């Protein structure tokens, strides 16, 4: 009780150790971007292992909530990929992505998440190389920023620490 009222707890995020690897979640549409990622594989293009891909049918299915959830659950970065505008398998599904992600970006900024941690790009089924470069680039950007560790941050700020039922005993 003796610390001054206005001191927030020390930044709880772990310093990036030598073995630390950025954790990035990628949401890809099936017809263009996921196939593009496959193409990178077929062409044996090497790129960092840090982006874990979740496949949806269309980038229009990517609810911004998935992005914030990923960060909240401990992702250091998020990647969203869809077909190029005008090239959508579902005609205009990616038009929604085109509007949602920039709006989401403004909210992430307000929440103090560096813009470099969140990318949304158009990757066609033919752009395996573009995809592999994209992943390498994003991984590097996030690595430079260091860990985000949102769960650690929230816990350090008291979210859920009262959940320890024994603690009621005061």
């Amino acid at each position, binding site marked *: 009780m003796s610390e001054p009222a206005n001191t927030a*707890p020390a930044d709880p995020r772990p310093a990036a150790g030598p073995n630390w690897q950025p954790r990035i979640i990628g949401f890809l549409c099936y017809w263009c971007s996921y196939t593009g990622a496959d193409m990178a594989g077929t062409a044996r293009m090497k790129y960092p292992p840090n982006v874990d891909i979740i496949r949806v049918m269309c980038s229009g299915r990517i609810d911004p909530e998935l*992005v914030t959830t990923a960060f909240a659950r401990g992702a250091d970065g998020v990647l969203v990929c869809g077909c190029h505008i005008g090239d959508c398998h579902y005609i205009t599904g990616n*038009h929604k992505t085109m509007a949602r992600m920039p*709006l989401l970006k403004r909210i992430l900024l307000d929440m103090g998440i560096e813009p470099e941690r969140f990318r949304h790009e158009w990757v066609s089924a033919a752009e395996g190389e573009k995809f592999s470069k994209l992943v390498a680039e994003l991984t590097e950007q996030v690595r430079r920023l260091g860990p985000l560790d949102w769960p650690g941050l929230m816990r350090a700020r*008291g979210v859920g620490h*009262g*959940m320890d039922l024994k603690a009621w005993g005061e």
Partner: protein
Amino acid sequence: MSTNPNNAAPVAKLKIAKYWAASCGGCDISLLEIGPNLLELIKIADVVFWPCAADFKYEDVRNYPDGYIDLCFYNGGIRNSEQEEVARLLRRKSKSLIAYGQCAVDGGIPALANLKTVKGIFNASYHDNPSIDNPAGVEPQPVTPSEYGDLEIPRFYPQVLRLKDVVPVDYEIPGCPPQSDRVWEAILALAGGQVPLQNRNVKVACYDKAVCDECKLEKRNVRIKEFKRVHTSIPEPGWCLLEQGYLCVGPATRSGCGALCPAAGMPCEGCYGPAGDVVDQGTAMVSAIASMLDARTEEQAQELIDQIADPTGTFYRFTLASSHLKARK
């Protein structure tokens, strides 16, 4: 649900308590608004703690046996250590703890402070402020030594937490403030044991559907061509405000209020929190509104998005503490 309390009221009189934390008191007013039904409430319940109403002190509550209180209505979020301590005390003394009102449920408006740092908040209040006179740069301290002993005030927390962030909560009554008719229905249900006890975070006194379900304004299924602000343009009466370009959060907001604001020509500001089983009201609104834009190119989309003055403050006005991210880094 029966509105005849004789069905609902148990034989023994209920013991009820009410406490406010980081909130404004609108919640207490809303309880009052149940009007004549207060009479019925009195028949079935005694007040055993209610600082603003009766002269019971913390000491009295400490002396109650655990589980002594049947229904404890806690309004307000957790902004400081005292509010958390009282929350734990009341949790221990209560059979059912009810988060009453938007602040206790989702953080409410005070949780907008989660977009700012504690330092910033103290600066704005005690240092960098046009009328402040604080040459010594004094700030409130949890403990201040005085000639005859230490003076204590609660510790200011780094961010606003919801009641359920610090203790388990049985029921939630959303709204800023909750609408009285809904509240009365809920109280009867609780008193009559019609909702299972100890069922964590069951939302009562509200509906699942979004505000549009109750809103009378007409939808024309047009995309949003530009965003407008209430003070610079006059909405066309009778037509959905969102389609007209006013930032109405109704589609992403739980109903129960009766869609009063749109009826008064003002966009819904989301005071009942997210609808249905949605967790994050802000992203729900981001997704919906962005999908409605009349944009064919990325440039057009960006142009429209730039017209939204304050997405975070608008879409999370009452629920920041419940959002996935909860607070600024």
